């Protein structure tokens, strides 16, 4: 039934008032002709209100003549009558068309470029290359040959092993997989020793070739011989020269120092922010969300997403270190750790972490961070045999 109702709404229907004496006859006759009536209400003995489709209304003429009753249209309902109102408002229809054309036209361009899958390679590097090849916000979609761009990108960027460019709607998505750097060839010719490249205490050793000179638990200095490539054993005849190979894991220590002046001020974000949003490019951008600036000191972070620019203002408070010694310590810990982590090879195990502070009251605080690691300290050095 609801489909009939919906259909009637789209096609349009009429509310009519029938006046006459034999209204039951009118109902029976219309129904028997296959004209559908609904929402019927008997207003009085001689009048009746009902809904009827436009097609049915046209067929009513014969019945009316036969029964001598009067029919008046009370109301016209449905979509066609509603749209009829707008028939003379040509600019409105023109505006709708222009809107559709603009939407369709704008969907033929790329608005955002997304990059997925980068880990070590800087996204900017790949994106700039992608922009050069023509995939950038504002580019025409029809001109983009994804396969060719993928190939070109892979050729020009050796850091990548796989790339896939997909254009979904107005979004270009580049998915990449970074290449694993090929390991250096291990030099296998000529005898060699393994020396220590750092001070440390030997933790474990795996000697594949050569003769271990040091023992587990022994303290070694930088440059000390760890595994010898010269084997002199009473059981063998003469001296054998081999290329010493193996892993010598040792406990090593790193330290970094940082000083914070306690009489200086530093900036702390209070957590309150103000956001301002702009729509448009460059100078022709319009703010669409603006809050009043009430902060005296602030950090400004500007982010761009397609045509939308979001400026976030972080309120900042100026604080002196003595106000918060814990903050100062935290700052020192963070900055020293960051510095050390750059020195340490990736994947090295940190065994222990110690921080020592030295405070000169009211003037400065000096912190030293000690990191204890277990790492491979062996390095091969070729032997020259006289």
């Amino acid at each position, binding site marked *: *039934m609801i489909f009939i109702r919906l259909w009637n709404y789209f096609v349009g229907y009429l509310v009519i008032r029938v006046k006459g004496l034999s209204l*039951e006859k009118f*109902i029976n006759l219309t*129904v*028997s002709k296959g004209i*559908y009536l*609904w929402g*019927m*209400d008997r207003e009085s003995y001689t009048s009746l209100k*009902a809904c009827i489709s436009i097609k049915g209304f046209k067929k009513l003429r014969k019945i009316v003549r036969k029964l001598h009753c009067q029919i008046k249209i009370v109301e016209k309902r449905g979509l066609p009558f509603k749209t009829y109102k707008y028939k003379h408002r040509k600019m409105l229809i023109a505006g709708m068309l222009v809107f559709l054309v603009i939407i369709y036209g704008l969907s033929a361009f790329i608005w955002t470029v997304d990059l997925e899958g980068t880990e070590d390679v800087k996204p900017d590097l790949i994106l700039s290359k992608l922009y050069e090849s023509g995939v950038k916000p504002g580019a025409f979609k029809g001109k983009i040959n994804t396969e060719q761009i993928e190939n070109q990108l892979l050729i020009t960027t050796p850091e990548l092993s796989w790339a896939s460019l997909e254009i979904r709607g107005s979004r270009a998505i580049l998915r990449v997989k970074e290449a694993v750097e090929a390991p250096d060839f291990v030099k296998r010719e000529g005898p060699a020793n393994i020396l220590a490249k750092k001070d440390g205490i030997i933790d474990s050793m795996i000697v594949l070739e050569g003769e271990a000179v040091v023992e587990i638990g022994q303290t070694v200095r930088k440059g000390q011989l760890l595994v010898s490539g010269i084997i002199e054993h009473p059981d063998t005849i003469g001296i054998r020269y081999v290329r010493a190979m193996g892993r010598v894991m040792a406990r090593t220590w790193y330290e970094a120092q940082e000083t914070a002046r306690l009489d200086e001020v530093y900036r702390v974000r209070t957590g309150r922010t103000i956001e301002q949003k702009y729509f448009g490019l460059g100078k022709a951008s319009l703010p669409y969300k603006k809050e009043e600036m009430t902060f005296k000191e602030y950090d400004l972070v500007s982010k761009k997403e397609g045509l939308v620019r979001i400026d976030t203002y972080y309120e900042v408070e100026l604080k002196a270190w003595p106000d918060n010694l814990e903050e100062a310590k935290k700052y020192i810990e963070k900055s020293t750790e960051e510095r050390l982590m750059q020195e340490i090879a990736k994947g090295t195990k940190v065994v222990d972490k110690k921080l020592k502070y030295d405070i000169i009251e009211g003037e400065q605080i000096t912190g030293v961070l000690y990191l204890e690691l277990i790492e491979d300290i062996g390095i091969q050095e070729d032997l020259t045999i006289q």
Partner: protein
Amino acid sequence: MQRKRVNDIKATISEMFDLPKDIVLDLPKIIMVGGNQILVENHKGIIEYTPDRIRINSSIGVIRVLGANMMLKNIGQDDIMVTGTIKAIELLS
């Protein structure tokens, strides 16, 4: 007489095969929902319609519906839906 026999056979057959009688025997099917909606299928026209009395013709006689503020929600060739406060349904054969 002939007609009655045909109807009897039809009734037995519809009973045997569990066929809906309203279709086989052309009987009216009256569905009432609560106290405010009645659907009559297989009707034979309206005899009288006022807000408090509706009489509908059918193959087994006149169906009289008494109530108040009754409206005919739909009228099709086969079905009539009455809404409003319904007080009584009578079969006058």
